[in-house]
């Protein structure tokens, strides 16, 4: 049964077009997202692992090694079942830092363009046998279907035709998206579809084999019983060493093969999908492997003359069934095309990121978008890679079986396993060790596995090792695999231990180690706002690309374009680096970001960004166990305690960045934490910016009372305390709202003032008693006076005494009014000297007081604007205090000077002075240094209050001369006035 070549090629074209249509429908959203985003699609897309090796090559493995063919699947199953060991840590790294290939991962870990380039080159070389395997499987199948004998010239022409078709489709698939960092939904869906097709085709073949060749499962069992030798051949799988090596090779392939890496990590959007794949992929592979033994046995029973790999086609031919033949062909075609498409796409991305861009082979064109340039480069690279695969296939001349090609490729990629394992598990590994190990391992691999089929030369040394170590048992490839891995690992370890690891690598190693994935540090950027990022990146990326990348990063982080918070800018920088890593590779991205958006040089030492760490922990919704859970509980408890403290707490970094702002701060300031945490103190709203900034700059660690007036005019009183953290320059400020305390104190003062008025009233009663007694005496004398002149004098004396009583009562009323704050001063021109004279006169009435000398130097013509009664009260209080401060021979002088419109009145004494530490308190009500019962502490408070009411002010200077009589000077500032027409003299 044969088909014409055009029929077969048309079939291939139609099949691949159908595949492209699936991708197109998925990309356009015509296939619903609930299907394309379903975990099953992701799991099925991982079936890309099963290339032509799974559809054809594994039949030869089963034929030669019995049950050992299962190791091909079990290696991958083991890797996925133990995903927590390697796959999940790598997935986290890849997703956080947008790493889409093994070269990205290793160059990120070892911080070297050389590592990226070496891995890419090595990967391209080791993957040539895999590409050749796919091409050979399809070309052979076409060849068989079209009825030609193997090995003739037309065989290569068919391979060329297939390569042209698959190149076109690979380019279509691979460059649908601008950037390799975008999830390629169409590709994932198409590969998942291919996995399903592959599975269905193999099951069709199994059913055809069982029911067509063996007459059902019972017939198969019966045939096996009749051929015990065959069943026994299954028994002893290949030798133990070979089996373990095979398992190791396929185990490594599950993470080192670029197409599997691409599907597992670059196309993953949810880590829970990978968790589901830990059982989903093994289930898929179980279903895929089930048909292999029945197909193999059917091939053996048929005894066809085709290579055993193509038993499926032989079954179709034997049954003369077009559907069965088509199923056999489709199984191989779907497996091979999926592998070629994804492998070349992954390799093309690696070449761009690690060979083309770092070597400046592709200068960034400012006029064109980077995305378009990259798209064309990717297209070219895909073509070149498939051409290289074909060239390798043609060079071999069909001398290698599919299994040999597969083993060569898998053993080659085994050389990347030491680097992959070291990434999360060995922080001391360095780039020199990795490169040395890789070179050594690849040399052994090339000598043992690439050289013999291409040149026919078998290295003697490897053959001797095989003889000496394994007694010539097993295959040579096993010795080559183990020897190459041993050389690789040995060199890697020894060179890493003997050479210096750079600081960059140490940082990357910390990031990659599983304990410390996120290592957010707090450093200050030279840029002040997000809008500056675009300008800085434009010279490196081109204006359009820079703008689009910055906007994209801002959208992902949900930040505003006017963002200025240092915390937000650091996150934006990190996100840009991660996004550019997906576009240009981690090394280029790191270099561009370091150059365009640098941190401030020579700034403060790096400190951990506690705020970001805590935010990540809170958002992660982690379920810790053991000591980690205890520590997390402690963290939460402490955080809650700090948040709910009734005292405001804010923590400020050395660079002025706000690191913490608890709930009390929110209620005191009205500013929510999310508005200020991560921003600078300078960017806080008024009046808090000034208060906190001044306090931080000041020398004092405490500010006991300060009044704050909000925009609405409300006043609050707060006290501030400051402390420094033990580590770094961080400072913690405690803010206490003492408004209620202040109001209470004011109320208390008022009550106390009222009480003091009551106490004064007693003194006043005594003061009034004297004139009243005088009036009574005068009235008695009046009774006996007959002389009109004497009567007049007595009446005048009575009137003077009455006026004195009135003045005393007025003073009391005035004081009580002033003290309550409701006094209104009625300002009028007042003669200053007269007022001073009156005060001196009143004070001299007290015969029990010290006989100090009062001198009035005031200009007799000087008139000030004042309430004369209240000004009198001021002088009485000031002169009385001065007298009390002097000894019996003291001297108190009053002088006035005129400066412009301002009159400065000084009251000087030669008394004991006022100690400096008390000078700030003398104006406070009830503050006195006099003995109990001798002073109320209201005198100077009243002076301050009256002068304030009259628009003047009062200052105290002490001492004014050297001891023993330092003296005090009280200076009153008042406004000059004159008796104009407005005022009645």
């Amino acid at each position, binding site marked *: 049964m044969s088909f014409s070549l055009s029929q077969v090629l048309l079939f291939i074209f139609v099949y691949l077009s159908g595949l492209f249509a699936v991708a197109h429908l998925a990309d356009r959203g015509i296939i619903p997202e609930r299907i394309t985003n379903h975990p099953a699609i992701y799991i099925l897309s991982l079936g890309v692992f099963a290339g032509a090796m799974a559809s054809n090559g594994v039949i030869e493995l089963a034929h030669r090694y019995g049950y050992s063919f299962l190791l091909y699947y079990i290696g991958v199953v083991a890797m996925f079942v133990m995903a*927590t060991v390697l796959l999940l840590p790598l997935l986290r790294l890849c997703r956080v830092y947008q790493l889409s290939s093994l070269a990205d991962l290793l160059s990120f870990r070892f911080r070297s363009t050389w590592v990226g380039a070496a891995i890419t080159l090595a990967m391209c070389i080791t993957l040539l046998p895999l590409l050749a395997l796919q091409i050979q499987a399809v070309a052979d199948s076409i060849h068989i279907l079209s009825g030609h004998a193997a090995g003739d010239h037309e065989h290569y022409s068919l391979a060329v035709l297939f390569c042209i078709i698959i190149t076109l489709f690979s380019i279509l698939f691979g460059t649908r998206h601008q950037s390799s960092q975008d999830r390629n939904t169409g590709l994932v869906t198409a590969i998942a579809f291919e996995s399903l097709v592959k599975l269905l085709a193999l099951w069709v073949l199994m059913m055809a084999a069982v029911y067509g060749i063996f007459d059902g499962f019972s017939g198969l069992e019966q045939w096996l019983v009749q051929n015990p030798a065959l069943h026994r051949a299954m028994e002893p799988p290949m030798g133990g060493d070979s089996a373990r090596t095979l398992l190791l090779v396929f185990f490594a392939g599950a993470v080192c093969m670029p197409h599997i890496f691409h599907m597992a990590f670059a196309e993953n959007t949810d880590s829970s999908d990978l968790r589901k794949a830990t059982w989903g992929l093994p289930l898929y592979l179980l279903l895929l492997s089930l048909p292999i033994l029945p197909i193999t046995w059917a091939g053996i029973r048929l005894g066809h003359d085709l290579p055993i790999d193509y038993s499926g086609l032989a079954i179709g031919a034997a049954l003369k069934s077009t559907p069965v033949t088509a199923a056999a062909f489709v199984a191989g075609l779907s497996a091979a095309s999926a592998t070629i498409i994804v492998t070349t796409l992954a390799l093309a991305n690696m070449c761009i990121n690690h060979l083309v861009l770092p070597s400046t082979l592709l200068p960034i064109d400012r006029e064109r978008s980077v995305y378009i340039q990259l798209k064309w480069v990717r297209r070219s690279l895909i073509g070149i890679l498939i051409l290289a695969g074909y060239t390798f296939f043609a060079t071999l001349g069909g001398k290698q079986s599919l299994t040999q090609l597969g083993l060569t490729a898998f053993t080659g990629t085994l050389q990347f396993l030491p680097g992959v394992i070291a990434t999360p598990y060995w922080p001391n590994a360095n780039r020199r060790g990795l490169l040395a190990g890789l070179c050594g391992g690849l040399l052994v691999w090339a000598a043992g596995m690439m050289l013999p089929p291409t040149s026919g030369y078998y290295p003697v040394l490897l053959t001797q090792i095989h003889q000496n170590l394994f007694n010539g048992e097993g295959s040579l490839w096993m010795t080559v695999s183990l020897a190459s891995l041993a050389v690789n690992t040995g060199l890697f370890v020894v060179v890493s231990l003997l050479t210096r690891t750079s600081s960059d690598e140490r940082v990357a190693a910390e990031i990659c*180690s599983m304990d410390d994935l996120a290592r957010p540090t707090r450093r200050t950027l030279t840029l002040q706002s997000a809008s500056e990022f675009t300008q800085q990146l434009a010279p490196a990326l081109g204006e359009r690309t820079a703008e689009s990348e910055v906007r994209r990063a801002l959208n992902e982080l949900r930040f505003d374009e006017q963002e200025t918070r240092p915390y937000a800018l650091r996150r934006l920088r990190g996100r840009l680096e991660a996004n550019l890593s997906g576009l240009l590779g981690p090394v280029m991205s790191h270099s561009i970001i370091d150059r365009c958006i640098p941190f401030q040089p020579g700034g403060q030492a790096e400190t951990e960004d506690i705020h970001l760490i805590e935010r990540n922990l809170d958002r992660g919704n982690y379920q810790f166990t053991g000591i980690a859970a205890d520590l997390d509980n402690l963290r939460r408890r402490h955080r809650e305690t700090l948040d709910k403290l009734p005292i405001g707490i804010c923590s400020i970094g050395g660079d002025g960045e706000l690191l913490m702002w608890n709930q009390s701060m929110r209620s005191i300031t009205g500013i929510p934490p999310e508005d200020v945490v991560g921003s600078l103190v300078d960017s806080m709203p008024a009046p808090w910016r000034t208060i906190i900034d001044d306090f931080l700059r000041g020398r004092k660690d405490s500010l006991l009372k300060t009044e704050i007036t909000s925009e609405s005019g409300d006043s609050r009183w707060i006290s501030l305390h400051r402390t420094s953290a033990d580590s770094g320059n961080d400072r913690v400020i405690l803010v206490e709202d003492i408004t209620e305390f202040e109001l209470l104190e004011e109320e208390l003062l008022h009550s106390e003032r009222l009480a003091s008025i009551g106490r004064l009233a007693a003194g006043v009663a005594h003061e009034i008693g004297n004139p009243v007694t005088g009036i009574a005496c005068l009235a008695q004398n009046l009774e006996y006076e007959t002389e009109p002149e004497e009567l007049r004098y007595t009446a005048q004396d009575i009137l003077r005494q009455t006026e004195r009583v009135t003045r005393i009562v007025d003073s009391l009323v005035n004081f009580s009014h002033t003290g309550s704050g409701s006094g209104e001063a009625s300002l009028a021109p007042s003669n200053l000297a007269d007022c001073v004279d009156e005060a001196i006169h009143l004070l001299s009435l007290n015969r029990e007081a010290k006989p100090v000398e009062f001198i009035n130097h005031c200009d007799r013509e000087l008139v000030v604007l004042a309430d004369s009664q209240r000004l009198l009260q001021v002088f009485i209080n000031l002169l009385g205090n001065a007298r009390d401060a002097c000894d019996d021979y003291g001297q108190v002088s009053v002088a006035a000077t005129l400066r412009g419109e301002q009159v400065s009145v000084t009251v000087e004494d030669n008394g004991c002075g006022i100690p400096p530490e008390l000078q700030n308190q003398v104006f406070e009500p009830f503050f006195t240094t006099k003995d109990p019962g001798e002073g109320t502490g209201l005198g100077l408070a009243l002076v301050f209050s009256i002068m304030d009411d009259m628009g003047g002010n009062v200052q105290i200077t002490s001492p004014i001369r050297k001891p023993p009589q330092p003296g005090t000077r009280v200076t009153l500032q008042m406004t000059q006035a004159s008796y104009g027409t407005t005022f009645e003299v």
Partner: protein
Amino acid sequence: MYINRALLMAVGVVLIFFPAIEGWVSSSESAWYRPYLLWLLVIVAAYWNQRTRYPDEL
């Protein structure tokens, strides 16, 4: 570093019982699909294991 304890124990058990398992699987008197039963068991265990959420979840 976080590695599932159940997984470590399972690997240990497999290593200890590997000779017995290998003998049972490749016995000539057994049904040809016997290895697949073991494989199915691994899938069930993996399914059971992945239901727990781990701290390295993204």
